[in-house]
Each structure stands twice: as structure tokens, then as C-alpha cells.
């Protein structure tokens, strides 16, 4: 029987400066884990965390689409915190327009940021992990949009579906040396948009057995479990939406 994958010790979180990403970073630091976080902009909240956990958090302003900068950041993390053995692909941009009104340039941006860039980051981190003979864990933050249709989110949904599919293939390809999973949150209360307006969010709430939209606090424990706990969960997409989608 093959040995299990040890808990993560150094976790790289993309898009870790606000929202769910920041909540994941905060939770892992509280659990005593070393965390590296990057985002286009380092927010005051992330700066505050870096001051509070100087030996456990390394943060920097990096655009996930800037591949050389991302790779340089990872190498600096390795020399600062130690080898990265876990990755949370959280960085993404949203969409708020019907497909027919989404410009070709915006479509390309969404696919680049939400699909191509995380696949490149995953490739880079895995190459370094495997070259060092390490085992590790990957958690992709996707969305219920990957499994259910919602207006105004065509390209966004396509990228999240792509990451769900990649999660399954990674789990197969990595042969148990790396546990690859995804979390698929339902809509966050903060996600009111022009297309998916308050009326539709109210409707989602009414149809949700737990009676409320998803909050980052609902997702964080699941991400922590996938990164730290000794489970045999691999290649799965865990939906966190209060059963709104069933």
C-alpha cells in the first residue's frame, strides 16, 4: 500500500489578498501553517497579517498572468519559507455580462486568468515538487457555475468547468503523490451583479435548504481539510452551497 500524502507545510495561495483567498490565508496561518500569498494588489488586510505572522507569511504583489513574475515569486517563497508542497488556485476574475455582450478581449482575459494562468502555475509548482521528490496537495477553487447554468457567466463558467476537469485528470496523472481536489462554492452574498441581480439571489436563497448563501467561512474548513487532513479524497469537486443546486 502506498504511503499517504502528508499534511501541507508551505501553502501557496493565489489571489490571497481579499475575500475567500484572504480567509483561506488567515485560517491556515491560525493553524500554524506557512503561507505564501500573492495577488495583483496587496491589501492592507494582507499587510496586517504579514506583520502579525512575519515568519509564517510571505506576501507580494504579483499578477498571475505575468508568468516570469509568478515563477520568481515561487522561487523566493522556497528560499524564504521552504519548498512549496501545496497550492490553492484561487485567483480569478469574474464576469457580469451576457455572452453576446462580452467582448472578445474580455473573453480572452477571463480564460487567460481563470484557466490558462492557474494551469501554468500548477505545472510550475508540480515540476518543482516532483523534482524534489515531494508529495503535495492542490486545491482548486472553482464554482457551482461549473455544474449549473447561470446567466451572465458563460465564459466564467467555462473556465471553472475546465478547472474541475483538470482536477480530475491531475488526480489520475499524479498517481497519489499529489492529492488534487476542488471546492465549488455556491454564490457568495457579496456577488450581486447586474445580470445575476438581487431578485435571482433571493430566489437562490429560497431554494437553498440551509436558507443562506455561501460565506467564505463555509468554505475555509473544507479547504483546510483538503490541505491538512489525512483523507483519501482525491480528484473530487466538493460543492459547498447548502444544497441549493441539488
Amino acid at each position: 500500500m502506498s504511503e499517504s500524502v502528508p499534511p501541507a507545510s508551505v501553502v501557496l495561495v493565489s489571489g490571497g489578498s481579499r475575500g475567500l483567498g484572504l480567509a483561506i490565508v488567515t485560517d491556515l496561518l491560525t493553524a500554524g501553517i506557512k503561507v505564501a500569498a500573492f495577488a495583483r494588489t496587496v491589501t492592507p488586510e494582507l499587510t496586517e497579517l504579514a506583520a502579525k505572522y512575519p515568519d509564517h507569511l510571505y506576501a507580494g504583489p504579483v499578477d498571475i498572468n505575468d508568468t516570469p513574475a509568478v515563477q520568481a515569486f515561487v522561487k523566493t517563497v522556497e528560499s524564504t519559507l521552504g519548498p512549496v508542497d501545496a497550492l490553492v488556485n484561487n485567483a480569478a476574475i469574474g464576469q457580469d455580462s451576457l455572452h453576446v455582450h462580452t467582448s472578445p478581449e474580455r473573453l480572452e482575459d477571463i480564460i487567460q486568468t481563470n484557466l490558462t494562468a492557474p494551469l501554468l502555475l500548477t505545472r510550475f509548482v508540480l515540476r518543482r515538487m516532483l523534482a524534489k521528490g515531494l508529495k503535495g496537495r492542490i486545491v482548486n477553487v472553482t464554482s457551482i457555475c461549473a455544474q449549473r447554468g447561470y446567466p451572465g457567466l458563460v465564459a466564467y463558467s467555462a473556465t471553472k468547468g475546465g478547472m474541475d476537469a483538470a482536477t480530475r485528470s491531475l488526480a489520475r496523472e499524479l498517481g497519489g503523490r499529489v492529492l488534487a481536489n476542488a471546492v465549488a462554492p455556491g454564490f457568495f452574498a457579496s456577488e450581486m451583479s447586474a445580470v445575476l441581480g438581487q431578485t435571482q439571489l433571493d430566489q437562490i436563497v429560497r431554494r437553498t435548504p440551509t436558507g443562506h448563501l455561501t460565506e467564505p467561512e463555509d468554505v475555509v474548513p473544507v479547504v483546510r481539510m483538503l490541505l491538512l487532513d489525512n483523507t483519501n479524497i482525491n480528484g473530487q469537486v466538493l460543492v459547498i452551497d447548502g444544497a441549493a443546486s441539488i
Partner: protein
Amino acid sequence: MSSVARDRVRELMGEVMTAQGRSLPADDSAELRTIGFRSLDFSELALRVEDELDDELNFDAPGLRRIATIGDVLDFIEQLQSA
């Protein structure tokens, strides 16, 4: 592109095996299936070779082929380096 000598590749292959608590037989005809050298182990070996080359191997060039023995692995790495 410079190349990593066959003997050195064999040493690196041994390091991959040793890191997993196993050893690499001296006989190149030993079956990978028998010694427990899996596809991910091959990836780890290729990444170590790339590290020494400071360049990526071109996996697009060679066609699919049967890699069943230690000698096959060493041949394939040689082929990748010359691609």
C-alpha cells in the same frame, strides 16, 4: 543543448529509487514493473535531468514507444536529449 551522460542518468535514476526506499538493480534489462519504477518516477527522473541541463526536454518530438526496462529508460532519455 548540452547533454547528461547515460551513466549520470543512471545515477539520477538510482537517486529517485533510493528516495523511495528502494534500490536500482545493476542489470539494465531489469523490468520497471518488477522494480516498481512508475511513470511518475520517470517524470521525476526527467525533471532531475532537466535540472542538470538547465533546459527542458522536448517530449513532443519522440513518438510513443514501449519503455519496459531500465535500459529503455536510459535510451529514451538519450533520445529526448538529442531531439
